C-alpha cells in the first residue's frame, strides 16, 4: 500500500469522524488535535478505524510520538514494512 493510499484512508476517516475537517484541505503538516479541534476520543477513533481497515498495527505506545499527520503516515508505512519482514508491529 502506498503512502497516498494510507493518506486517503486517514482523510476519509477524519472527514467522517471529525466534523471540523469537512470541506477543508487536510495536509500532512496538520495536527488533528491542534488544527481541527478534534477531541482525544475522535483521534483514537480515526486511528483505530484506519488501522483496522488497512489491517495494520501501530504500537499504541508509539502513537503519542506523532506530532502531525505526516508522522502518523510514517508510522503506518513503517508498520507495513515491519509486518512484511515478519518482525510484527507490536
Amino acid at each position, binding site marked *: 500500500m502506498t503512502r497516498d493510499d494510507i493518506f486517503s484512508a486517514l482523510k476519509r476517516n477524519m472527514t467522517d*469522524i471529525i466534523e471540523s475537517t469537512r470541506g477543508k484541505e487536510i495536509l500532512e503538516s496538520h495536527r488533528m488535535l491542534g488544527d481541527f479541534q478534534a477531541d482525544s*476520543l475522535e483521534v483514537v*477513533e480515526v486511528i483505530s478505524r484506519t488501522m483496522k481497515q488497512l489491517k495494520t498495527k501501530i504500537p*499504541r505506545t508509539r502513537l503519542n510520538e506523532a506530532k502531525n499527520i505526516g508522522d502518523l503516515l510514517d508510522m503506518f508505512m513503517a508498520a507495513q514494512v515491519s509486518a512484511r519482514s515478519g518482525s510484527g508491529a507490536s
Partner: protein
Amino acid sequence: MSRGRGGAVVITGMGVITTLGDDLEKFFAALMAGRSGIGYFEKIDPRVAARVGGDLSSYSLEDCLRRQPGQVPTVVIDRLRRLVKSSPLSTQLNAACALQAFRHAGLFEASMDPGRLGHVLGGHNLTISYLLENARTFEEEPEFIEPLLGLQAWDTDVLSVTSEVLGVRGPSFLVGGACASSNVAVMTALDLLRSGRADAVLVSGAPMDLSSLLLQACVLIEAVSFRSFNDQPERASRPFDARREGFIPSHGAGALVLETEAHAEQRGARAWATVLGASCASAASRHAKPNFESQLAAISGALADAAIRPTDVDYVNAHATSTPLGDAVEVAALKQALGRRAWEIPINSTKSMIGHALTAASAIELIATVLQMTHGRVHPTINQEEPDPELGLDFVPNVGRPHGIRIALSNAFGFGGLNSSVVVGAP
C-alpha cells in the same frame, strides 16, 4: 397528592420505540387495533432455539430523526447523530426515544435549569450482543476492537450519551431490576422529585440489544416460548391464555419525563398523568420463579404509597409475560391485593402485542397505560383463544373497548424476585 417538599409529580412527556411504532399515535393505534409486532430476530445465531421476537435490529435511526417535528433544534439532532454513530443499538434507541419524550414535554422550548433536570435510566446488561461481537474481534486481533469500547462497555454510556444529547446536568444514574428496571426507575425518579433534589427527571426505559447468547440462556431455563408457535410468531405471546408457554423477547425503548406539578404548571406544560405512588419488594430469592408474597407486597405497597384503596383502581396493566406460572401468580396476587375489585376492572397485557422488552418493558407499559387513560379506551390482550379456567378475570380478550380510567396500576416483576408496581392517576 402532595408528598415531601417536591409536591405532586406528573408525567409531562413520553416517547416510545417499539415494533408497533416509534411515535405515540402510531403505537396507541396499533395497540387498539390488536396488531402483533412479533416476528423473527434477523441477526440471531440459527442454532438458537428461540428465534421468535420483536426485532428492531434493522431500525432506521435516520428515518426516526427525519420525522421529528420542528421543535427539536437541529443542533440537538446533529449531536445525537454524531454521538451514536458508532454506538450499540441500545445507545441509539435510548437516545432517540428520550429525545421524543423531551420534545413531547416541550423541554426544548423551556428555559429550565439543566442542573435541576435529572436522568434515571432503568436497565443493565444493555449491550451484551455488542460486547460479544467485540469479544470475537478480540480473539482475531485485540487491536481491532471498537475504538470506544472502553466507554461503551459500560451501561452508563447509554445514559451519558442521552444526557449529552439533551444537556441533562442534574442527578443521573442507572437503576437495575431486571424486567422491573423501568418501574424501579420511575419509583426512584418519584423519590428524587418528592425530596426536592430535582424539578424534572427523565426516565429512560433502556433497551437491551438481545444477543444470541442471552436468548439461548433463556431457552435453557425455559423462560421463553420456543415450542409451539415458531411458524406463527404473531400467536406466540399469549398472556393468560391456556396455551401460553413462555415470554417473547423484544427490542423496545420507552422514555418519560416526570416533573413536579409546580414546575410543570410554572412553565405551562401539559400533565398527561399524575404519578401517585410506587413500590418495589424483593422475594429474597435469586430464582426466576414468581413469588406471590413479594408481588403482593409490591402491589399493596404502591397502593399505600399512593394513599388509595383497592376499590379506587380502574384498570391494571399487568406484567403478564405469557409464562404459565408467572401469569397465574400475578393474577393470584391481584385478586388478593384488590379483592372483589379485581373481578370488576379490565386487566390487559401490552406484551401480548409487543412481546417482552425486558428492561424497557415497564416504561413502555406505563406509557401504554397513560395513553389508554388519556383516550378513555383499553387495548385488547390478543391471542385469547382458550381461556385458562384458573385465572377468570377480564383480560380484555382480543378486542379493545371504551373504558374511563381515573386510577391505574402497572406491574413489573423481574428475575431474582424483584417486584414493582406504579400507580398513576388522571391529571
